[in-house]
């Protein structure tokens, strides 16, 4: 750039970007695959001018000055094309000639990514790699006074209940008198949380469903998956596999026309219905499927026109109070499914969660409460919502459990925790910690995308372009050129792998605690943390 060229406020250098592309001219074959594959067109083929000055030791010899060109890769500095660090270029490069490297200081791109007054929107998760759950240790190890169990050989029954469980006295009396007893499902405590058909690609969705079906039918693991807010493919609605599926209804009601019409043809009841009132990644904000992803198939399943943004409102617009929002809606959903299907709300973790929970304790139909913490992920949201809004899951789930204990309903309303479980890879440890804090089970989303499909997203702002439908792995794209990269059967295999390994790790945690007959829900004497304030807040042991 000439030194006198005009610059704009948003003129950035490569150094200002979060990711710098390192390209090795010697190894590059100029095949062009990296530039073709880059989801954000951060790199382009370029012609570089080069001058070679040949001087000799013999001062009388002529100095030659040669001007040449060579071809290579140039990184764009326009904020709209900033490299997202997905490293797909590196993955496709036959000679490993290219790799994105994170800058050594905070980028300047973040100040310019709101051009046109549009704040940054992205997919992914909160950009904070810390995890309180990772700091919780399991400290009550059975030693001699009671034998530790053999995780490999002992009999374990690590299931949980989803549904409104009546108090024993009431249940037994209803049983005698043929009264109505709410439906209760016995399920595996690790569930795949709501990720919609639309947010996920068809191949990803099918792979997850296939994996879940295999776990249930072949391995006798009652794992459940939630649809998220995007409806459910008609064939699945009319198949026996629906019983492994939790249908989600959210404020956009997308896909529910199709679901309601399928009710008479259903061969099996769905596992449950989740009413989504909030999401940990963007609490107090509605769902969002950006127009890039609303193709013919998605539009058909959701019952909307093609190619438009699909923002769900932050609340259910037809309802204005908790009584209406929760009580009536829960009851309506029960009625629609013949009172055979548990219906429960899902909310964002919030300091007001106890008000919701207290209301549910008085609602005899509420089948549970799912709470999604600030570390939850999403396909699309405003960056500010993801990074700054929300409540940590640990203290919210603990408060909720202790609230239930105070009113004696800890067995009646199961709590499900979500958001940041396994964010650093410690899935079983995080899940067990939450269970011992009081959760009946946990929901995971991002972990599945990472473990079952190779999502490259991270808590340090890598990739995160799920919202644009440009997912380089084909996980969150609706473009067949992208999602055909993902093999359905391979995803299913990985889903099975992850659940089997989780199961072994969970046993490796509970067996030394002497637990095998039931899931150790609320076994708070078994856990400790090295932070006094956190220990006080969670009412667990302080250990150093």
């Amino acid at each position, binding site marked *: 750039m000439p030194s006198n060229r005009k610059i704009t406020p948003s003129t950035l250098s490569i150094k200002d970007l979060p990711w710098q592309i390192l390209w090795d001219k010697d190894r590059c074959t100029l095949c062009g695959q990296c530039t073709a594959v880059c989801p954000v067109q951060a790199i382009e083929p370029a012609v570089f001018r080069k001058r070679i000055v040949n001087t000799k030791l013999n001062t009388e010899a002529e100095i030659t000055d040669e001007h040449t060109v060579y071809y290579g890769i140039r990184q764009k500095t326009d904020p709209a094309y900033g490299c997202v660090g997905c490293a797909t270029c590196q993955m496709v490069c036959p000679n490993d000639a290219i790799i994105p490297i994170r800058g050594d200081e905070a980028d300047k791109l973040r100040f310019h990514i709101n051009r046109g007054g549009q704040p940054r929107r992205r997919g992914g998760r909160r950009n904070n790699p810390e995890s309180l759950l990772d700091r919780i240790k399991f400290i009550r190890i*059975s030693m001699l006074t009671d034998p530790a169990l053999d995780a490999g050989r002992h009999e374990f*029954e690590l299931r949980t209940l989803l549904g409104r469980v009546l108090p024993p006295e009431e249940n*037994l009396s209803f049983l005698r008198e043929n009264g109505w007893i709410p439906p209760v499902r016995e399920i595996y405590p690790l569930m795949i949380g709501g990720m919609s058909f639309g947010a996920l690609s068809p191949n990803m969705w099918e792979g997850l469903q296939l994996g879940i079906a295999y776990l249930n039918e072949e391995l006798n693991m009652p794992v459940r998956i939630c649809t998220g807010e995007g409806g459910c493919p008609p064939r699945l609605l009319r198949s026996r596999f629906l019983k492994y599926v939790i249908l989600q209804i959210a404020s956009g009601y997308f896909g529910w026309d199709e679901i309601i019409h399928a009710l008479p043809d259903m061969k099996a009841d769905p596992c449950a219905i989740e009413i989504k009132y909030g999401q940990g990644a963007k609490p107090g904000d509605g769902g969002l499927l950006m127009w890039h992803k609303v193709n013919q198939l998605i539009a058909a399943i959701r019952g909307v026109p093609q190619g438009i943004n699909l923002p769900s409102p932050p609340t259910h617009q037809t309802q204005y109070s908790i009584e209406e929002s929760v009580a009536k809606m829960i009851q309506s959903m029960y009625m629609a499914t013949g009172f055979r299907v548990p219906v429960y709300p899902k909310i964002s973790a919030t300091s007001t969660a106890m008000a919701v929970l207290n209301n549910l304790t008085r609602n005899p139909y509420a089948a549970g409460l799912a709470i999604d913490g600030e570390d939850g992920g999403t396909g699309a949201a405003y960056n500010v919502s993801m990074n700054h809004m929300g409540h940590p899951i640990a203290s919210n789930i603990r408060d909720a459990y202790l609230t239930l204990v105070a009113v*004696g309903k*800890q067995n009646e309303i199961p709590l499900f925790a979500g958001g940041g479980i396994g964010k650093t890879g410690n899935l079983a440890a995080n899940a067990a910690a939450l269970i011992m804090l009081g959760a009946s089970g946990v929901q995971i989303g991002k972990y599945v995308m990472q473990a079952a499909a190779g999502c490259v997203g991270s808590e340090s702002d890598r990739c995160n372009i799920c919202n644009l439908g440009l997912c380089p792995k084909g996980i969150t794209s609706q473009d067949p050129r992208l999602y055909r990269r993902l093999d359905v059967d391979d995803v299913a295999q990985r889903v099975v792998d992850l659940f089997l390994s989780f199961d072994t790790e969970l046993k490796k945690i509970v067996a030394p605690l002497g637990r095998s*007959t*039931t899931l150790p829900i*609320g076994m708070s004497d078994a856990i400790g943390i090295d932070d006094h304030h956190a220990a006080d807040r969670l009412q667990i042991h302080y250990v150093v």
Partner: protein
Amino acid sequence: MCRLFAVTSETPISPMVAINALDIMQEGHDGSGVGLFLRDLGGPFEEIKDAPILSGIFTESGLKRLDMYMMELGFMTKYKISIKIPKTAPPGVPKRDIYLVRAYEYPEEWESLSQETLYDRLLDIRLALRRMGEEKEDMIVFSFWPDVIMIKEIGDPMQVAEYLNLDRKELKARVIMAQGRQNTNYAINLYACHPFFLQGFATMTNGENTAFIPIKEYLLSRRFSGYTGYQSDSEVFTHILHYTMKKLELGIEAYKHVITPLNDEDLGHHPDRGFLGHLKNTCRRLIIDGPNCVIGCLTDHSIFMVQDRKKLRPGVVGGRPGMFAFSSEICGLDAAIPDRDKARDFQPMHLDTVVIGPDRREIDLCRQTEKLPLLH
């Protein structure tokens, strides 16, 4: 590990039978304490079966406070055992003022009360006394119930028994439960000492209850005043028994289905799977996670033994018509009932509940996979 011994006999016997059995099994406990539960009493108590008996340990001032309290309520002493203790206590046994076993006459105005109300009031009085005692550290109350005596003390069982002169003719019972304590995770506190008692139900346990905290939280949240204490993780077994039989109105054969329900596969084959499935779901927070051997006594004077699903704790059953016993070890049985057919001794396994009824004619073995008797 603790050592347990329970005996039921058609003729009243001395608690020394059980103490001897514990002494024989002394390699299995550290002599840090002993707990005794006597029921279906003989001797002078035979004539006053309905009179509630207060058992506990008092200081001189505590006894005065007790007398004032009971007099205000209108209770009159009907009969008492005076335990005169030697001047020097054996090593490890604390010096106490009074070991109290005192039968009362109900206040006159209580005569018209239903048994249910009466029993609730007895519980209230015991809990009130316990609170009073904890406040000034001058009373420890074990039970206040008709036809039941409880004695607990720190120290070696045999030495304590000799010290208290338990081998006396006025102290005889048809049902005796005894525990030799192994002091492990809790400081020595007599309220942490087995057997535990609540409204006619008593249990003692061998082993650690790893699910203690969630169970305790669940019982506390039942809002029943008797579900309190929990100085020991084993106290919940008594309270779950009470909950099963009094609150849920189920029989003893259901107790094991509450504390260690069948796994889903076995449950699927059970003739009562519908009922048991509901029981398992609704009582899920009462599932113990052993290893535990629970021995207990019911209001009809039956005694029972239950093993948890892991079956990692010892427990043997033996005897002859008229006298049966449960013991942690066979040598304990040998000491108490030498004239039995030893070939018929057996060790209940992970699905078994053993009950010996008040007629003491036979051992009733209830396997968890069997059909339940008709529900009442």
